């Protein structure tokens, strides 16, 4: 079943939308959730929550790319759960590592409202990514959007570990420069 047919099922409030989503994107969403949470049961539950989130969002939403729409829900829910668990003495895994690495990109300065900051930051990061060479952009997105491990990225792109790590390091430094240029303070 193609994406527009699945979206139509959501709009028609047909529960087959969930089974079709699961069949087509279950593995994709689960891998995102697992990368962040690294516990099987958590990942399974987040995938269930993703279908519930999609059910609540469609209508009124009609996503143009269903995979990334569902992936975004999964990522958001997984991070929320990760924070909840981390706050209660849980956590670790790729998410903690990714957060540590991203500290490289944090400029010094005053805090501002977090919601405005996230929206503005996204636009800055969009511009930043658009200006990167394709390979660097893909590796950055694999690491910090999909939370893929370094080993997984190496396997996917055929890069060595040191090349992947130095590429990410360079990209983070460039992002820091960009954020400073744009006057972003976190």
């Amino acid at each position, binding site marked *: 079943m193609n994406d527009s047919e699945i979206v139509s099922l959501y709009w028609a409030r047909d529960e087959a939308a969930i089974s079709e989503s699961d069949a087509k994107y279950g593995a994709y969403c*689960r891998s995102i959730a697992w990368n962040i949470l690294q516990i099987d049961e958590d990942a399974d539950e987040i995938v269930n929550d993703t279908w519930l989130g999609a059910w609540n969002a469609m209508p009124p939403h009609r996503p143009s790319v269903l995979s990334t729409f569902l992936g975004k829900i999964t990522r958001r829910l997984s991070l929320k759960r990760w924070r909840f668990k981390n706050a209660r003495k849980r956590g670790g895994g790729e998410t903690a590592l990714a957060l540590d690495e991203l500290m490289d990109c944090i400029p010094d300065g005053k805090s501002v409202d977090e919601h405005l900051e996230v929206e503005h930051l996204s636009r800055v990061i969009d511009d930043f990514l658009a200006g990167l060479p394709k390979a660097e*952009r893909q590796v950055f997105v694999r690491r910090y959007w999909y939370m893929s491990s370094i080993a997984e990225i190496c396997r996917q792109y*055929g890069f060595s570990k040191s090349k992947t790590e130095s590429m990410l390091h360079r990209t983070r430094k460039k992002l820091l420069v960009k954020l400073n240029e744009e006057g972003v303070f*976190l």
Partner: protein
Amino acid sequence: MKSEILLDAIGEIREAFIHEAAADSRRSRFWLKTAIAAAAVLILCFAAIFITRLGHRTPPVPPPELGPLISEAPAGASKEENILWYHNLSFTDEAASYDSPATVDLCVFRDAVFTDEEIDSAVLRLQEAGWTDMTSTRYHDGSLVFFSQPERDPKTLDETIEAKRNSPAGITDADVEHARQFISDSGLDQLIFEKTSVTLVLEAAPARNDVVFYGYYDGLETGSYIRMSFYDNGDLAEAKLYAVVPEKRTVSALPLAEAKEHAFRGILYGGGDDYEPHEVRSVRFEYRDGLPYYILTLDETVANGPVELRALAIDFSLIENDERLHAQWAKQFDLP
């Protein structure tokens, strides 16, 4: 944490970038597979040429570009996504003498559906036992249920959370005690047993950081569970219940000699995929997710211990047309 804001912002980047990274990695895997297939065809062609030229004693010279591709799939194994399939394994005498069983059991796990009345009854019991303000949510198919109590003193909780950030991870004895009390007060253990014949057993896994009771049926791990986490004051932060109804069948076993031709190893989630098809030095029999497997231990070891392969101990045709059994089988690959 400031980097969390950055992580949130990255989450909202243009969809095209997200799609590009996923699409290209899929494409790269597609091209890798295609290249490996092409390499295999070329190898066969060169083998055929070699055989026809044997009389001339002309050695085959593979084109140099085939080198790296051949090393991706050495003789004796093949790679499919995140699975390594092993073929023509060699066995030590001791391993080869393993007696295959004539029949084996398999267990189909079907989702147990909890009714509103059953869950309401558990919530009522909890409230009567002092678990005030308890709420519950049934997921869309009724097989997963969520219980929680609201945070009563957010200020205290924040301080506790902050203090815990720097403390070692792991569940405490108090957490385990709260969990036992929750299950006893709710009557969920009895409900699950009456509904599914599954018995709950506490699994001590401090690294998991939540208290987990897994469900067993006739000694088999079923995938049923109750997972709980608690605030410091003993209130329930969350409990998630999932249970299955096991259906046991006895079927003919696949002899080891046949099963070993489909031995495999999952290599997902950034795990290493370096391997050599070494000799099998021991064989044992285990149930995983309700299905019978021969577990083949190789003489090769990795940092985490000996390398173990799994080989399904029943004919694949028994599971390929059953959605649930197939899902149980697919879990063995650790695939998402």
